[in-house]
């Protein structure tokens, strides 16, 4: 007998209960607690986390993101989707997709990456930030057992992308850093079959996992939330410095990446802040990294601010261009001239967009078709790369 108690315990309870009943007439019987149970959600699949360190007394330290959560047995990290069970740290979201959709790559947004193609986009529950303006909080700010998920192993994700004619898989909507193992294995498998992978992230990831992951990714989009520690701490429960370190690492690694800056009225829209940010990008990352200034809409815990005025985005774009950034876009404003790509040399429009759609593309072989000036980005489908092993992953970072 399984459940409230086993057979022996049941009989003991019954016997004690009957004895007690004979002694006291004030109590009623307990048999109603023993009921047949219908089915309900079972335990999730468990996958050991790739980067963590064992501590004393069954505690662990997560080494995926700079939060570095130290987690006692039976507890979860800040992301809520990994759990320490007797000193082993498990991901609860491996192969558990809570969102699957085939999106234009421009929606990510990645404007210099296979324009006009689609990306099979997947997410799993959880995030290592808590942005008060979170656009997908119903999945990013929930724990895996609280959202509906599909079991979708890496091989099925890759097959689905191929079946739908998508050259890319995007890890997006929530925060892929916190479903690292799922993303890593899918990206590696995809690469071996000629399907690229892009991570749409807040960039809050430690060096070792980032370096390992970039072996299998084809591009990264990073949300640079603001340029002050105050904003990161108070509005995102995160830190700026590690994100800037990630950006410098991406440059060093040589992978394609683009930046998105969501502008929130009064919180991160000052000329001073945008200027400092733009100069830092230009100096540390170079003028060729695309920067998207996007429009905020009231959401989650910030509902008291209006949508970002278009003029604020235009001002930010001008500041960034003046700082030497060549490809600066205005996002979430369909039909705006800041959606198009212009050649820095001849100044002609080389990619014309509206919303997520490509109307014209004059980039040929990675160059402006008007003046032959090289336009940086990923313009051709990446070749299939066979990793050395496609069996079980090695767990890194163990001391």
């Amino acid at each position, binding site marked *: 007998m399984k459940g409230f*108690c086993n057979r022996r315990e049941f009989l003991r309870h019954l016997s004690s209960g009957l004895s007690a009943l004979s*002694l006291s007439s*004030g109590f009623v019987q307990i048999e109603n607690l023993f009921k047949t149970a219908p089915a309900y959600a079972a335990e999730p699949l468990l996958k050991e986390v790739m980067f963590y360190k064992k501590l004393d007394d069954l505690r662990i330290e997560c080494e995926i993101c700079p939060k570095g959560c130290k987690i006692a047995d*039976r507890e979860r990290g800040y992301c809520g989707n990994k759990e320490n069970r007797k000193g082993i740290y498990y991901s609860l979201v491996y192969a558990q997709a809570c969102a699957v959709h085939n999106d234009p790559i421009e929606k990510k947004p990645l404007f210099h990456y296979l324009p006009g193609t689609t990306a099979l986009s997947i997410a799993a529950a959880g995030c290592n930030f808590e942005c008060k303006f979170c656009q997908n909080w119903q999945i990013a700010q929930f724990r895996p057992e609280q959202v509906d998920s599909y079991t979708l192993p890496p091989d099925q994700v890759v097959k689905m992308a191929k079946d739908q004619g998508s050259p890319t898989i995007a890890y997006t909507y929530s925060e892929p850093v916190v479903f690292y193992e799922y993303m890593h294995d899918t990206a590696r498998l995809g690469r071996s079959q000629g399907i690229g992978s892009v991570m749409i992230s807040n960039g809050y990831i430690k060096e070792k996992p980032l370096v390992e992951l970039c072996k299998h990714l084809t591009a990264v989009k990073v949300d640079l939330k603001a340029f002050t520690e105050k904003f990161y701490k108070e509005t995102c429960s995160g830190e700026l410095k590690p994100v800037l370190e990630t950006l410098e690492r991406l440059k060093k690694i040589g992978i394609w990446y683009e930046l998105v800056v969501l502008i929130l009225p009064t919180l991160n829209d000052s000329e001073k802040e945008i200027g400092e940010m733009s100069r830092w990008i230009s100096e540390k990352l170079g003028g060729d990294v695309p920067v998207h200034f996007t429009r905020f809409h009231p959401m989650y815990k910030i509902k008291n601010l209006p949508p970002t005025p278009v003029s604020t985005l235009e001002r930010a774009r001008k500041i960034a261009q003046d700082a030497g950034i060549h490809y600066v876009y205005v996002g979430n404003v369909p039909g705006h001239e800041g959606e198009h790509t212009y050649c820095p040399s001849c100044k002609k429009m080389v990619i014309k967009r509206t919303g997520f759609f490509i109307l014209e593309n004059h980039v040929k072989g990675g160059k402006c078709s008007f003046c032959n000036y090289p336009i940086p980005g990923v313009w051709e489908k990446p070749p299939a790369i066979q990793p050395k092993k496609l069996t079980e992953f090695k767990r890194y970072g163990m001391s």
Partner: protein
Amino acid sequence: MNPQRRTFLGYIVSLIATFPFLTFFQRKATAGETSSIKVSSPPGDKARVVILRREGMVKGDAPDVSLIRKVINEGVCQVTGNPLASGAWKELFTPKDTVGIKVNCLGGRGISTHPELVMAVVEGLRIAGVPDSNIIIWDRLTTELEAVGFKINLQGDGVRCFGTDSNYEADLEEIGSIGSCFSSILSRQCTALINMPVLKDHDLSGVSLSLKNLYGAIHNPNKYHDNNCDPYIADLNSHPLIRKRLKLIICDGIKGMYNGGPGFKPHGSWEFQGIIMSRDPVALDRVGAEIIEEKRREKGLPGLKEAGREPKHIATAFKKGLGMGDMKRIEVVKG
């Protein structure tokens, strides 16, 4: 004088003369239902916390259901000051209530609310006239409840028992530092709440007692672990969904943990063989934390503050007016 009238007056005199004795015997007889106890009304200017320790409530894995029942009823009498167990339960709950019993099953079989203790509480609710179908034993996850021995009953007749699982409110409730979706069991189904935490140490908040146990009522407790969970725990407990419903706290201290929580560690646990009851969550936590501190001292361990996990949330909850945090104004009734 009319003989009938004389007889009648004789009855009255006898009744008046015997009243004090009747009251005495009534009290004694009632106490005999549970144990021979004396109860007094709770002091008006103090919070009352009741600690009842009895060897043998659980011996090894074998619970003494009869003893547990006795202790629970004695406790509810002491908490309310009502010498009748039936009266005490009726003072707290009405037949119209839907009572949620929030247990704590995170620690698995090693350190979770004992189902036998919950059974005794269910019996008390029945005495108060609460129908079985209006009693819900709940925690975060159904799987966790089942793992510690609760029989799951999602929607059948009788006492229901299930986890919130994915059933949280769609809308966010914001209060102080907290922004969370509440378990719909608490927000939609319950009109009254009995909180049944366990007596244990916690790696982040210092202790996990009454206040911390209600992290299990929101969808995102993992977001509120910084700074020893302070002021998050206090802010959460200040929400009307909790404050207005909470009627009674029964902390399961049959086994306690003084170190290594919240997961079960045999080497950090001890047989406290008791329960701690109160209607005041802050007072109960203040007393419970002191019990854990005392055990740590006895074992030569540093205090919780020294160990980097001072249970600051108790003082914060006191400051917020959620209960009594000053030991001088807490009456501890031991038995």
